[in-house]
């Protein structure tokens, strides 16, 4: 089926240009096909299959985040070629292709110029290993490795003459290569190998080492996976920076792309400075070798609400059936998860409750500048010595996307959190806060020691503060800043009260003090079956997507309650407290699978908030002079 697909695609342009409608029809056809249920399972994914196993010009999919948007470019939508032997003019289509056929007649009046835009896409940053693994396993069975062998041989032949770029792939075993990305792999013995090939090859670029030259601009350090230049033809305005998409498109790894970039005739430069205009950095960023950063010509893109492979991804009937079936067991899963988290949080049930609420929180709307639904949790009083690290590992096991930022003085001073525009290379240099929606950001403040923050450290802290309070990141465009709204769940673990703002602070009160923390946590973790963990994963992703409303009756009750509380002691309850309690009530209801707020739910929310507050008061009186 796939082969047919490919053939069908390769030649639509030539015969059908008599019909101007064909483009729309082709798109319709593909979209129709892709909407079918299994379609996504038989299209190979760039995330899972290494590039050299994929056939050029075939249909692939890519689960990614839009990291940067390049300038729009004009291309030859339709062009005419002259066959040198027969002198016959043939009209050809340039859509979905990077290079033209030979013998283009540049002066032809039939040429049609069209517009497209390039997005630089990276795999979703911080995607948890389990999410990758599951989607890999579900896709892997449809990859018949044998059919890829010829193309692999062909590739390696090319690799020989266009040298080092594809080196890392050679040494990798097909199986591990399948799971992990292609490039930033440490070279190991590859280095010596490269030197061999490098000497004879007539590379004109500076012989700088591979890794610096090919900065793939991932938001998080240590990320791997293919980055991709996605050519977008339609609906340019509907895409936004940091959108997570599943893109279906035609893979293009034409080696000519690389060669075109490399070959520079110096004599041309004087007469035609257009080409010298691009700095080498810009060239590198915008035209990296296709073998490393493949081009993907987008046919169809689906915005992803979540990247949890255990859940049906599209909002179809399928999903609603799934949701309603899961709603039944929601309460029981919640209880199990709560018990699990209680264990993890050393027997502190209240903290576990809040952690659970935090994990399903979501900015569901914004009222002018105010993001609604965010629920930043500050777990204070965390035991030192790698407890937080373990805690993160457990969170990571539960959510599809997460990142732990250890707030040590060194990282705060040296790390780039906010993306910055590099005008020399003309690209947006990513930072750790360029994250997909609903990513769990785990800020480990226990790592912070005394010392001085330098100016970049202050900027980083400010950026984190802005992220927590307004759910926005101000990207640095050097002449001005630009605000990008985001939706990131921030969990701060600290010893005392955090220096960052938070919506809700819960001092941890351990009920048990295990002699060996690591062992304790590992045992808890091991005790869970994978099926159980999977249930938790589905539960957390699902609870977040549910709708929610408050009836007039309950509204009235809440109002009355608020007025009553204020009557007793106006200082005790402020508007801010009401804000928080409304969020807690919302999350509490959703966590139980209830889509409307009941009086009960409100009382419960009030109750746990009271508990929490009494705990912080207690803390305050203990500490004495805290403000």
């Amino acid at each position: 089926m796939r082969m047919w697909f490919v053939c069908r695609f390769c030649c639509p342009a030539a015969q059908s240009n008599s019909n101007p409608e064909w483009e729309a029809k082709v798109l319709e056809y593909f979209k129709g096909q892709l909407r079918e249920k299994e379609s996504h399972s038989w299209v190979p994914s760039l995330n899972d299959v290494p590039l050299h196993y994929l056939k050029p010009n075939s249909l692939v999919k890519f689960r990614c985040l839009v990291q940067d948007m390049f300038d729009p470019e004009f291309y030859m939508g339709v062009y005419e070629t002259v066959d040198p032997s027969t002198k016959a003019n043939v009209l050809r289509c340039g859509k979905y292709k990077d290079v033209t056929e030979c013998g283009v007649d540049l002066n032809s009046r039939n040429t049609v110029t069209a517009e497209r835009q390039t997005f630089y896409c990276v795999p979703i940053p911080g995607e948890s290993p389990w999410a990758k693994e599951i989607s890999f396993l579900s896709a892997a069975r449809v990859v018949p490795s044998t059919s890829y062998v010829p193309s692999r041989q062909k590739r390696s032949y090319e690799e020989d003459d266009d040298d080092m770029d594809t080196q890392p792939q050679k040494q990798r075993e097909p199986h591990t290569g399948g799971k992990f990305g292609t490039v930033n792999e440490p070279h190991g013995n590859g280095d010596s190998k490269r030197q061999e090939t490098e000497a004879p090859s007539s590379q004109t670029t500076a012989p700088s080492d591979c890794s610096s030259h090919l900065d793939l601009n991932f938001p998080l350090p240590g990320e791997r996976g293919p980055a991709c230049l996605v050519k977008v033809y339609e609906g340019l305005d509907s895409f936004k920076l940091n959108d997570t998409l599943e893109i279906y498109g035609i893979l293009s790894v034409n080696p000519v792309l690389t060669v075109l970039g490399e070959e520079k005739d110096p004599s041309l430069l004087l007469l035609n400075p257009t080409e010298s205009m691009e700095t080498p950095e810009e060239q590198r960023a915008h035209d990296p070798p296709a073998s490393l950063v493949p081009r993907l010509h987008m046919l169809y893109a689906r915005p992803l609400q979540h990247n949890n492979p255990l859940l049906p991804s599209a909002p179809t009937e399928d999903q609603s059936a799934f949701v309603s079936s899961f709603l039944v067991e929601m309460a029981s899963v919640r209880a199990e998860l709560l018990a699990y988290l209680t264990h993890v949080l050393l027997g502190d049930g209240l903290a576990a409750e809040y952690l659970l609420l935090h994990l399903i929180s979501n900015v569901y709307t914004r009222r002018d500048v105010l993001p609604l639904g965010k629920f930043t949790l500050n777990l204070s009083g965390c035991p030192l010595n790698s407890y937080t690290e373990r805690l993160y590992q457990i969170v990571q096991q539960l959510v599809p996307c997460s990142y732990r930022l250890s707030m040590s003085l060194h990282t705060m001073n040296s790390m780039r959190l906010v993306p910055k525009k590099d005008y020399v290379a003309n690209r947006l240099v990513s930072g750790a806060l360029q994250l997909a929606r609903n990513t769990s950001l785990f800020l480990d403040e226990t790592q912070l020691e005394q010392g001085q923050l330098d100016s970049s450290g202050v900027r980083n802290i400010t950026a984190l503060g802005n992220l927590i309070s307004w759910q926005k990141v101000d990207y640095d465009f050097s002449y001005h800043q630009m605000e990008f709204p985001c939706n990131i769940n921030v969990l701060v673990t600290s010893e005392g009260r955090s220096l960052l703002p938070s919506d809700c602070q819960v001092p941890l009160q351990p009920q048990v003090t295990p002699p060996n923390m690591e062992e304790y946590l590992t045992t808890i973790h091991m005790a869970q079956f994978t099926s159980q963990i999977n249930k938790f994963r589905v539960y957390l992703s699902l609870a977040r997507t549910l709708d929610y409303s408050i009836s007039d009756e309950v509204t009235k009750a809440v109002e009355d309650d608020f007025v009553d509380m204020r009557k007793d002691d106006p200082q005790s309850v402020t508007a801010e407290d009401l804000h928080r309690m409304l969020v807690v009530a919302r999350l509490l209801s959703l966590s139980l699978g209830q889509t409307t707020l009941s009086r009960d739910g409100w009382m419960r929310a009030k109750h746990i908030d009271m508990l929490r507050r009494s705990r912080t008061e207690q803390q305050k009186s203990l500490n004495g002079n805290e403000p």
Partner: protein
Amino acid sequence: MSSPTSTPVGSKRSRDDIPVTPSSDGLASPPSQRRRGQDSSNGDLPAMPTSPATDIASPAVHDTSLFSSPRRSGNFLPSEVDMSSPLMYGTPSSRVEGTPRSGVRGTPVRQRPDLGSARKAPQVDLHTELPSADGAVASEQAAGQKLVIWGTDVNVGTCKEKFQRFLQRFIDPTSNEDENAGLDLNEPLYMQKLEEISVIGEPVLNVNCSHVQSFDADLYRQLISYPQEVIPTFDMAVNELFFERFPDSILEHQIQVRPYNALKTRNMRSLNPEDIDQMITISGMVIRTSQLIPEMQEAFFQCQVCAFSTRVEVDRGRIAEPAVCRNCNTTHSLALIHNRSAFSDKQMIKVQESPDDMPAGQTPHTTIVYAHNDLVDKVQPGDRINITGIYRAVPMRENPRQSTVKSVYKTHIDVIHFRKTDEKRLHGLDEDSDQKLFTEERVQTLKELAAKPDVYERLSSALAPSIYEQEDIKKGILLQLFGGTRKDFSQTGRGNFRAEVNILLCGDPGTSKSQLLQYVFNLVPRGQYTSGKGSSAVGLTAYVMKDPETKQLVLQTGALVLSDNGICCIDEFDKMSDSTRSVLHEVMEQQTLSIAKAGIICQLNARTSVLAAANPVESQWNPKKTTIENIQLPHTLLSRFDLIFLMLDPQDEAYDRRLAHHLVALYYQSEEQIEEEFLDMAVLKDYIAYARTYINPRLNEEASQALIEAYVDMRKIGSGRGMVSAYPRQLESLIRLAEAHAKVRFSDKVETVDVEEAKRLHREALKQSATDPRTGFVDISILTTGMSATARKRKEEVAQALKKMIQSRGKTPAMKYQQLFDDLRGQSEAAITKDMFEEALRALADEDYLTVTGKTVRLL
């Protein structure tokens, strides 16, 4: 050369280096209509004063391209022309033959690489059946024949004449551009400019396209669609006209016409393939400029055998090297002589979309712009500019060694005219430089809104709807957004009067002050948001930096300068260090910033409104203390705020209920309701922008009277109790607020209603912030001197009591501090705090009555 076909426009277009785009086809498709239009216009035309055709009609000069004359400087004789080469056709018009007037003859032509010198433009006759090019040119004058430039519908003669008519007749009495300052608006505008050229000697004529459009829409359309052909025609027309008028003037080169303000495109994002080869105007910010690039215009070749030399012009970026020497017939004997070739200056400039016209959530686009000749180095990175130029797309060069090419074009803009949008800001000439364009419908909706009687309330409630009530604060901020009318008294030596309203919000933490600030920051186009804790004095003002590349000192502006004409929101105002705060003194009254750093001394404009938020020192507002005591800000700074609001928790049941309702509603309102709010924000933005740009209210007689009364009343209140309750600063505030309120109503007159509202709001703010907690009276001296009159009186009393007590003790040269304090407390019936005691001691020390050393008090 020219096509012998009878329907040349659509079918055989030699848009040589650029493939035909669908749009240009679309433009050319109805030639019949356009021809008709031209016919009629031509019929009305008076006889042309000069005909370029007759001048170059001589077949000896092989010039079919009429306007090659003003733009080429071919120096060689016709005999040198190799007629067989396709490159050479129509090129060698000697300027002597090509120009009719002596003045023109004496002035060298300057090439216009911005228009693409490689362009050949043969003309085509639309009517006659066999138009050989020469014949066509010769018979151009014949009635009924229409010569047009190949691929366009431009007739050179008509076009030239129309433009000359435009220059001679165009009058724009309503012009308010600063470029036209000093010109008589009732005389033909461009003739005055020509006169200016003859005096100043700068041979550049800037032409506003909107003028052309209002004068002759068809000419405008041609200019936009075929700039490459039409602008040289304009050049020619201008030069003829100019040297006719001023035959004796000497110019460096012939006058070049530089059109600007083409209405075609405003936004970089909206550029599309249809704009290729058209004239466009876009706005943006310069982010990078390249080094100067010498671009070869004409190559000089010399035969190695016989030393015969020839020149070859650049065609589409390439030089066709002559294969055979025409003198000695040796093949491949010609060598390029670099230093005798002609070069022109060129610079690449990268321009980025200005942040204001970008959709949310996307990254800004950039465009490459080429500047030529004297436009090189006209702009610097960071400048905001409007660029008028021709949009180009060049296919990626075909590599001879490659069979396939990349199917992508490189696009750039050849710039014709730069206009800095922030230039005016620096000179401080005009109100708002980047005039936002409003569609008529939009203006209509805005005016309808303004006509509603409750527009003021409506707008103020549309402001930050998520923040509950605080109506007066919102109203104050609304007036701040509109601002007063700018008045210039610099001729009488008082300089500018501040038109900006400054507001300080203080109050308990958690009363959504920051949220209000964030909202305002998001609402206004030139807003800045800083936090007092995080900003230093230099971050607010300006700092000098060494550019790592050029080693030049560069002045980097801070938040206050950046928010010129906008609003600077400063959160945590109280946490600001004293040195930082001191910078604000100048900004908040004089509206300028003086800098003397690293050899740079300058004064920058910072006409910004300040919206600040401060928390009380004791984290909770102490109602028993005055504003100054609560926020510990110097009164000199406080008095510069027009309005100081307290945001306190009111703590009453009805309020609580409404607040709860509001908050709960916030959490369950449906999407559509939220949509509505967003619409309001856009309307509000436009409303403010419109009012700020177009409405400049002035006080009418009654309003002035009302203001005077209000001021006198305010002074009276205090004088009864021996206090001053108003200073001239308060009067100025009142005027500003009244003007702003008139702006809200879109009214050009400040009327009594405006004064009433200004008074009310001002009183409200005073009531909140300047009430003396001890007496309950409004006392402006709290804000102006930092202490209420009663407090001052009280201080004196304590000091006197202390003095009396010490005197009553008789001769004791030294006393214990603590004991004295206890004694005083015991003696006085009112409670005396340690602070008061210390203040009293200090007062006595000032009188040289005693000194305090450590724990002992000594009499002097």
